């Protein structure tokens, strides 16, 4: 007797082969989707949001594409998740990780079809991943000691990262920007200290790195436009009406005169507050919250530059740059640490006026001003630069470097192939499959560039047969070339994260033999 209704209505259950097929297909579909964006000649995607305004994003960044997709297939969600983690952890390689996981599953599917148990495949993949990682570890170059060389490594890495993005035309310019910005951080990975301001207009080449700090605000009317040797008080305090914070308090008056009295008292209170602030001996006051006209006028009278409504990040960065503390009470002026900088002035970028702080006490922070033809270009440039900055800041901490252009994949594939030959049993099929999946990455890069991938990859493999080869695919000239000469480098940390997370994800999906989908939660119709 069959069981009717074990699950709730609409809940579905997929078992065994069908479940496996569903997850393989889902994962591979995702991998194929982002596949074409891989490599220096990868294409971009247009994403249109479903929200109001149908805003459009043009991007090449795997994580951004996947984040905006609405996905129903659970296996596909696993891949989206690893891409997001890759973005959070190392910042780059978000496409590679998905493509590699997809290829691993594609190979696994073939093996499952010839009746090899998923668990056997998993144990083979594990061995292969370990072996591939060791192969990379053997080949890494670490130039931490040699500052000159290290800087050129960083330069190469950022150029390699940027070459697959919209900035590839001016990659040298931007690579230099990114390296300079990261070097200023002096080893910290706190990317908040690097501010990116986007201003439409001009061309991408006009983007520049500013050593000081730029705040996207206007200077109040009647206040000094230029201050030398500024003393800055960074504050987070209400400068509109100071509410009484005691619970339940309210104003109750019974005549017009009393209203006036209270108003007067309020004004006195504000005046006192402003007086206290001014008595810190400052000539610039930056507040996170609004500053009303009345206190603004008072500040103007005292010759103090008052800037209102700087957002929270702005305040934090400004405090970091100028070395001041963020103040909310002003009763003891002697002990509040003020921020300092040599010069504050109003500058023009394009059409907009901005406030520029230069000659700051702490050299860590800086601002990158991006210029470009449209806001889409700027957004994409911002994402690309963010990727480069992330990779660089991670490389500063872990300075191990590898060559790029498919070189690491070839090295890994070779080592894994050797392991397959040595391993007895069915596992060796899985190990071989792993090496095929690794080879798929240079193949896709070449395909995307419109090159004869089969020819190039086989040439590359022959090159790599020799010990210590440095050959990789040079997409620009469309041939196999020496990656040391071309200066194509990648960070070890990124490659390692790609390898490990892709294997982990593939393993997770392979282990599944049943998918149970609950009935989707009903949304109330708001008609």
């Amino acid at each position, binding site marked *: 007797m069959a069981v009717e209704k074990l*699950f709730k209505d609409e809940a579905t259950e997929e078992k065994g082969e069908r479940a496996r097929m569903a*997850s393989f297909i889902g994962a591979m579909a995702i991998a194929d989707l982002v596949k074409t964006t891989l490599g220096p000649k990868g294409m971009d995607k247009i994403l249109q949001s479903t929200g109001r305004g149908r805003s459009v994003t043009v991007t090449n960044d795997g994580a951004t594409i996947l984040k905006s997709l609405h996905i129903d297939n659970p296996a596909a969600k696993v891949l989206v998740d690893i891409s997001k983690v890759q973005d959070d952890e190392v910042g780059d390689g978000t496409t590679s990780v998905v493509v590699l996981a997809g290829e691993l599953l594609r190979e696994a599917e073939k093996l499952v079809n010839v009746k090899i148990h998923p668990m056997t495949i998993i144990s083979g993949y594990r061995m292969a991943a370990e072996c591939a990682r060791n192969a990379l570890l053997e080949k890494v170059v670490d130039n931490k000691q040699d500052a000159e060389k290290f800087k050129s490594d960083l330069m190469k890495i950022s150029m390699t990262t940027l070459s697959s993005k919209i900035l590839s035309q001016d990659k040298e310019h931007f690579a230099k920007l990114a390296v300079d910005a990261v070097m200023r951080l002096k080893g910290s990975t706190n990317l908040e200290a690097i501010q990116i301001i986007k201003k439409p207009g001009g061309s991408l080449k006009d983007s520049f790195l500013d050593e000081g700090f730029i705040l996207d605000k206007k200077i109040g009317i009647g206040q000094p436009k230029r201050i030398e040797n500024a003393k800055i008080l960074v504050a987070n305090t209400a400068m509109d009406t100071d509410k009484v914070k005691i619970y339940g308090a309210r104003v109750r008056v019974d005549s017009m005169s009393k209203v006036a009295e209270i108003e007067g008292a309020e004004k006195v209170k504000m005046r006192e507050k402003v007086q206290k602030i001014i008595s810190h001996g400052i000539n610039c006051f930056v507040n996170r919250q609004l500053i009303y006209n009345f206190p603004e006028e008072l500040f103007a009278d005292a010759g103090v530059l008052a800037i209102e409504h700087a957002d929270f990040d702005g305040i934090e960065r400004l405090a970091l740059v100028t070395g001041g503390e963020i103040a909310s009470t002003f009763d003891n002026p002697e002990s509040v640490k003020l921020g300092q900088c040599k010069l504050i002035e109003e500058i023009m970028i394009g059409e907009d006026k901005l406030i520029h702080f230069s000659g700051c006490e702490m050299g860590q922070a800086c601002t990158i001003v991006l210029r470009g033809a449209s806001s889409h270009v700027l957004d994409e440039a911002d994402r690309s630069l963010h990727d480069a900055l992330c990779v660089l800041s991670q490389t500063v901490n872990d300075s191990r470097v590898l060559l790029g252009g498919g070189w690491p994949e070839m090295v890994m594939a070779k080592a894994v192939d050797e392991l397959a030959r040595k391993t007895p049993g069915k596992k060796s099929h899985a190990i071989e499959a792993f090496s095929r999946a690794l080879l798929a990455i240079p193949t896709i890069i070449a395909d995307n560039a419109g090159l004869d991938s089969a020819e190039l990859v086989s040439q590359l493999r022959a090159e790599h047969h020799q010990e210590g080869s440095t050959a990789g695919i040079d997409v620009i000239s469309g041939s196999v070339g020496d990656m040391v000469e071309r200066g194509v480098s990648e960070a070890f940390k990124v490659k390692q994260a790609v390898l490990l997370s892709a294997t982990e994800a593939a393993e997770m999906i392979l282990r599944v033999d049943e998918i149970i989908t609950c009935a989707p939660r009903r949304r109330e119709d708001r008609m």
Partner: protein
Amino acid sequence: MALAFDEFGRPFIIIKEQESKKRLRGIDAHKANIAAGKAVARILRTSLGPKGMDKMLQSPDGDVTITNDGATILEQMDVDNQIAKLMVELSRSQDYEIGDGTTGVVVMAGALLEQAERLLERGIHPIRIAEGYEMASRIAYEHLELIAHKFEFDATNVEPLVQTCMTTLSSKIVNRCKRSLAEIAVKAVLAVADLERRDVNLDLIKVEGKVGGKLEDTELIYGIVVDKDMSHPQMPKEIQDAKIAILTCPFEPPKPKTKHKVDIDTVEKFQTLRLQEQKYFDDMVQQCKDVGATLVICQWGFDDEANHLLMHRNLPAVRWVGGVELELIAIATGGRIVPRFQELTPEKLGRAGLVREKAFGTTKDRMIYIEHCANSRAVTIFIRGGNKMMIEETKRSIHDALCVARNLIRNNSIVYGGGSAEISCSIAVEAAADKYPGVEQYAIRSFADALDSVPMALAENSGLQPIETLSAVKSQQIKKNNHCCGIDCNDVGTDDMCEQNVFEALIGKQQQVLLATQVVKMILKIDDVISPSDY
């Protein structure tokens, strides 16, 4: 038909609205129930053992969970059938009581039901079957005790504990680094265990996860990790020899519970109120400072002004810390949770050797580590992993391992795994069956067959010939009189589980047998299912 006639011969209906209810009775009800129970067991069957597969579950909101843990799978399934719900309960109670073996118990209940179906077809009354099962379960329970080994461990020799945890972990996705995770679990349990009373309070072990890094980076921290950062970005990121004030009152003006209004109608009142307000903040911070605190941990938020005052007086603070975490911090640092500023005294402060803030990855995720605490009885297991699902699954696996370690500290008897205990019980029950006169004999024999189904599933999942392997192992057990023979899932080459170091806790196994039998008895006693029809 539930139709009766009153004394005047007029018909009346006892159960109303017959048409709108679905009703199953007698043998049909039994069969439907058994089929439902079997269906649930069938889902879990492939997850058993070290080579068991995972299930992918999609929740109503679209979140994906991938897991191998029986209790989790059943919990997240959208089960509608009443009997299936009983099975879910069964697995849950095993989870609460023992923490491990949640898959095994369901598989066993499924097998018992399957056997019961055959007996029903032969016309044996369900109650007789239930009684037979009850007798058989008692035999198995006692036999388990007989074959159990006591094993000795102490704070220095933890190897047996680690081995047992490894058995638990080997069926999960984390088996890649089961050794290190098992060690972490054992160390954590020993750190909080009260070896005198043989009791472990698992609440003292906090399991925290953060996406990123790799599984190998998972670590045990003798202290607390809180997923929060300092309230003010410019507060110091590292505090040595911290004295911690643990507060449950906000740094805000007081809010009396009774409804009240403060009317401001004159300028003087306005001004006094303002001064009062400033004084509040000042007093609060001063009170913390006066007792000598160097770190404030607060359950609530701070006002901007209070925040700055704290920063200004060089008093780092953490806000919005959850209640459970607050308690753990209090336990670890030996401090008291203080509900009012007035009640702060130096004795109530907690102490920690080092408090530091640590950043992860490229996003601005920060966490606060409280280490070298005065009382190191609270520990944190900090899990890293490639993605969110991995972390969740690792958390569940660690929980299982912790439970196993705890059970062993409570009762240090073990049985051997790999299905060997089940096979041994099956032999014992089979032998005992012949001694019982009456129909129960058949039920007891069926129970023995049902016990065989666990090793059978193990062998099946490992890609071995189930019947062949099982009979080989069984004959080995009888021939050599060695109850350690089990299924060689990992293809090591020996079927002696003693050599393979595959152990399970005795109470876990006993509980499995008892719980499975109880649920099956309950299901067998149902002979009428009335359910409202769809409306």
